[in-house]
């Protein structure tokens, strides 16, 4: 079945119901949806990267995003629109600049410990809840994409994003099923002695599940779905494939290459260590699709 045909079918089948859900969610959040397709594009400001990724994925260019340089290094895709202003750090988005920009909507993500009150005084605030323990991250990313779509008057784009992502993953799943079934572990390397390894409760785990790939890391993780461990613990994954996310600082890479433990880890010795481009581990559907795609190329 071609990708586009399946997309249209599913989209047509559930559009109304989804729309209702979206509208209901928006109403429940206490924020009125923006008028769909208003004369001028809505001015959106994003307080951190997950919400920025979601807003841009829905085809809306935010006027300002917090820590734009960091976004370009750690999230990368989807691209920030040209002329998108920097709002300052994600921990402290600049309130005075925000006031001056007079956004129609401010979008942020739950969990960064920011008090919502000051933002609500400036413009309606849409908060994307993630990692609050209610739903698995991928499922929650879908729900939140719909809610955000309803909020932005981009229901169709939201539907399309959900189905495109699902289709991408399904296609790749077919690709993977041809290969030998080999478990893999996904890590970020911040220094040469520790890794942050993603497991149960992470977006990556959900994508792996959808790809029918086994995560070699089965030990418990924290509420954000990862845990920071010494690299010696990677012995536990045996000869599984080891996928590390860029960016790895060059000096860390050099020191890792000098490490006698690293060189002798079963997975490294077997030639199963790979590096893939940056993916924001706490991102939404775009990050999920990006992860699946790079995994297939690794």
């Amino acid at each position, binding site marked *: 079945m071609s990708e586009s045909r399946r997309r249209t079918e599913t989209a047509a089948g559930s559009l109304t119901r989804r729309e209702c859900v979206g509208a209901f969610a928006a109403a429940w959040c206490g924020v009125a949806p923006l008028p769909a397709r208003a004369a001028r594009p809505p001015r959106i400001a994003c307080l951190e990267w997950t919400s920025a990724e979601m807003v841009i994925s829905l085809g809306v260019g935010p006027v300002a995003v917090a*820590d734009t340089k*960091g976004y370009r290094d*750690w999230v990368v895709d989807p691209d920030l629109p040209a002329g998108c*202003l*920097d*709002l*300052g*750090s*994600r*921990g*402290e988005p*600049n*309130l*005075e*600049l925000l*006031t*001056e920009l007079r956004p129609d909507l401010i979008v942020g993500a739950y*969990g*960064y*410990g920011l*008090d919502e*009150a*000051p933002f609500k*005084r400036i413009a309606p605030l849409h908060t994307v809840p993630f990692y609050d323990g209610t739903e698995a991250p991928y499922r929650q990313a879908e729900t939140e994409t719909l809610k955000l779509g309803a909020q932005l008057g981009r229901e169709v784009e939201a539907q399309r994003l959900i189905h495109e992502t699902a289709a991408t993953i399904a296609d790749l799943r077919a690709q993977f099923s041809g290969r030998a079934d080999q478990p893999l572990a996904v890590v*970020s390397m*911040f*220094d*040469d*002695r*520790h890794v*942050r390894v993603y497991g149960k409760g992470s977006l990556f785990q959900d994508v792996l599940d959808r790809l029918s790939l086994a995560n070699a890391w089965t030990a*418990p993780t*924290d509420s*954000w779905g*990862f*845990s*920071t*461990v*010494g*690299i*010696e613990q990677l*012995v536990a994954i*045996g000869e599984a494939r080891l996928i590390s996310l860029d960016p790895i*600082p*060059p*000096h*860390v890479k*050099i*020191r*890792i290459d*000098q*490490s*006698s*433990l*690293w*060189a*002798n880890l*079963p997975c490294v*010795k077997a030639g199963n260590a790979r590096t893939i481009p940056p993916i924001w581990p*706490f991102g939404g559907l775009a990050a999920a699709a990006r992860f699946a795609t790079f995994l297939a190329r690794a």
Partner: protein
Amino acid sequence: MLVALVGVPAVLAAYLTAVGLMSLLPADMWWQSLGATDVADPRQLLYRHAFLPRLAISLLAGAALGLTGTLLQQVLRNPLAEPTTIGTNAGATVALTIATLYAPWMLEQGREWVALAGGALSTLAVLALAQGRSFSPVALIISGLVVSLTCSSASALLMAANREYSEELFIWQSGSLIQNGNAVVFGFAPWLAVAGIAAFLLLRPLRLLDLSDEGAESLGTNPVVTRLAGVTVAVALSSMVVAAVGVISFVALAAPALVRLAGARTLRQRMIWAPLAGATLLWLTDRLVQVLPFASEIPAGVATAFLGAPLLFLLLPKLRTNPDRDGVTLSSVRRRSGWVYLLLGLLAMAILLCAALVVGRGAAGWHVASTAELADLLPLRAPRIAVAVSAGMMLGVVGTLMQRMTGNPMAAPEVLGVSGGASLGILLLFVATSTVSRPAMIAAGLVGALASLAMISQTGRRQPVANDRLLLSGVAVATMASAFSAVMLASGDPRLDTLIAWLSGSTYRATAADATIAVVTATVLLAIVPLTIRWLEILPLGEAASRGLGLGLLRVRLILLVLVSVPTTIATLVIGPLSFVGLMAPHLARMLGFQRALPSLFASAILGGMILVSADWAGRMLIFPWQIPAGLLAALVGGPYFMALMWKGRQ
């Protein structure tokens, strides 16, 4: 005693090590796989390239720290000297932070040289500042503290501005002994060997430092050269430790102190036993953190802080300290108690407040807000300015109160660990409940501040002007708090942005309610404080004199404790634990000539308020739309300024 001191922990550590090894590899394979390791066997790989290197580095780093502490304490004739108190660690840390974030190519050959350069520079700065007062213990520690605070503010600032790039630094600065093979051990061991040989070659001249400088010279050594050589060895060693495993606090302080207490009288004895004690201390700590039932392992550097701090409190009464002769006196102009000057100061503060309210930057650049714009901006700017000015005033008053109470020129809420105690309370609350509710935070902070004050006054009671002990207990609490925040930062929880912001003294989250609480507390404090003037004039005369003049010491102390802890807690809550204003403002007031109790209290209140308001405003403007936390900026600018004052004020 000495054998027991080293032997008991060693036996315990050896037992834990053996148990750990057993579960890893059968005992009959230990020897064989040491030389001929079959790395294809995961057990042997872990044994040879993770377990043993970690064991080795804990022993080596511990020994290095023990030796460092002994050398520094001998050379500087100061029982409190160690790499943390004399600024070496902070200098090495900031150098590594800068290199990691801006010049990673410098680290390609390893961290050692960068750490060494940073550690050497900061130690030099500390020694240069203390040199004018012939390295008196207090002068040295205050110089070390000022330099350390400045360096760690700089590191914190750089990390806050590079949040996602700092993960490596967070992990590293918490002092983890986890190893990834032989490289670090093989790199470190030669340094330790060379330093050990150098130290023993220096034994005789070092011993002569026990004599007066003239005496040492008459015996044919040059004390200046000896000192320089001793400090060089110590700084090199401690920078290597920082480069290899991060900051391991307290071992360099505790090991020499412990062996001295256990009866090591001569320098030779101490130079042999302190490294042994340091090695077993770190070895045991590192084994303990691995058997503790926590979800993620606590880094050894944090654990030593937790184990070492209470140990120090136990040991404090037994530690023999040199009576401190000269405090730090900054050059003061003529005496000035004129209320005219205070009024002028008040006027200056009012002008500053107005300027901070209306002048700002926006998308289009600098501009002075019109009345219409102010309607938008006032709700954003007013709470921040209000908490900054009130916190500054409170810290200024509290610093003056504490300096008068203890008769110690270095007393300040930041220095004596009151801020540290408050932040420890708040951090514990955050860990236990993840709450950011203000009343709960105030309560937790208050408990922490009172607890540390109680500990401090307990320490200070037996010997009223035991400056060294007072400082030592303060350093202990402050170190514990910073170690604790280090472990939380290393956990990588994205919620920590809030915590980082708070730790660095940001007013960003100030609400109208915060502003009200801070302003009310500051006002009440300023209203009550004049009633305590008589006590404050009498207390510096000493305990006997105060009793003679009819002060009910217990009651007075209790009231003053409350007057210190409540405002400190509120200030810590709104501006973070790292501000430096409580130390700086009273000294500035004295320098400007305000000597008597009441005028100096008000003067330091005004100065403290002005410092933090300026810092807050500048922090919002300098790298717009990014923001520099006010507390950080105050420390970053205040530190060097303070250093300059000390430099000018030296004899």
